């Protein structure tokens, strides 16, 4: 547990919870990043401006980190081909399962949605198995 960073983790989590609450009170929406991106890729989506402004805020936060706290954007752990496979799986899986860490993990669990609790347990377990296989069996990163 030598890398345990409880205070930044808790503070960052509070900010994520505040953001989700702001989006709920202002727009009445669940803050689900995969859903926001996925909606922009579909013709029938009506709230494009909302999604674009939210995702714009995310990108600007990253740009701010480049200037103010570059270490916050950590080093990659996977090779480019493995990253490409990861991206495909994350994109396909989050759309098939209707959510990711934000929509299911934070917003869904907060409102005690059974679907989100089960989805979160599922992706934590398969994520854990994947890291175990890659790190301890195959010997990658």
């Amino acid at each position, binding site marked *: 547990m030598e890398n345990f960073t409880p205070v930044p*983790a808790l503070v960052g989590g509070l900010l994520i919870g505040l953001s989700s609450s702001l989006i709920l009170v*202002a727009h009445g929406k669940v803050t689900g990043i995969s859903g926001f991106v996925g909606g922009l890729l579909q013709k029938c989506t009506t709230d494009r401006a909302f999604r674009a402004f939210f995702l714009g805020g995310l990108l600007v936060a990253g740009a701010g980190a480049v200037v103010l706290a570059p270490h916050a954007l950590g080093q990659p752990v996977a090779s480019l081909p493995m*990253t490409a496979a990861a*991206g*495909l799986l*994350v*994109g*396909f899986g989050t759309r098939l399962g209707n*959510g990711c860490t934000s929509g299911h993990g934070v917003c869904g669990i907060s409102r005690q949605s059974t679907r989100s609790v089960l989805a*979160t347990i599922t992706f934590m377990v398969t994520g854990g198995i994947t890291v175990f296989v890659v790190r301890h069996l195959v010997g990658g990163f």
Partner: protein
Amino acid sequence: MKSHVTAFAGGLLFGVGLLVSGMTEPAKVTGFLDVSGAWDPSLALVMLGAIGVHAVAYRLIRRRPAPLFESTFHVPTRKDVDGKLLAGAAIFGVGWGLAGYCPGPGLTSLAGGSATSAVFVATMVAGMLLQHLTQYVLNHPSRNGGPESNRSIPVANPGLAR
């Protein structure tokens, strides 16, 4: 106009939260998922902090008749647990474990200009489009001239618009 400000502010706050918490460092994510190695429980506290705030705020906010800029709340109401939910979550988890990025941190890391984050976001978008296409083909068997061409299949994934 005001609604654009809250949408942007929400994204900015979310991104800062991800950066502060360590979610944008892939090694912290894989360290959390690596229960059998040198386990880093930090991300459990990220979830705890976020859920702690939002679970309380959710209850208070839902007492309002409507949100500030919309006439109704758009919160999912589905209760059924189906194969798509679990299969999708399982596939997502594998991808999350492989590179240590979920969608939010992947996008937030784009500004860093690394090839890794660019490849992640590009392939994530491709994966989403592939899922939409698969769903479309499954929902429109008539386009393939198959035996079910006279039957209309209801959209099985109402959450897609969200």
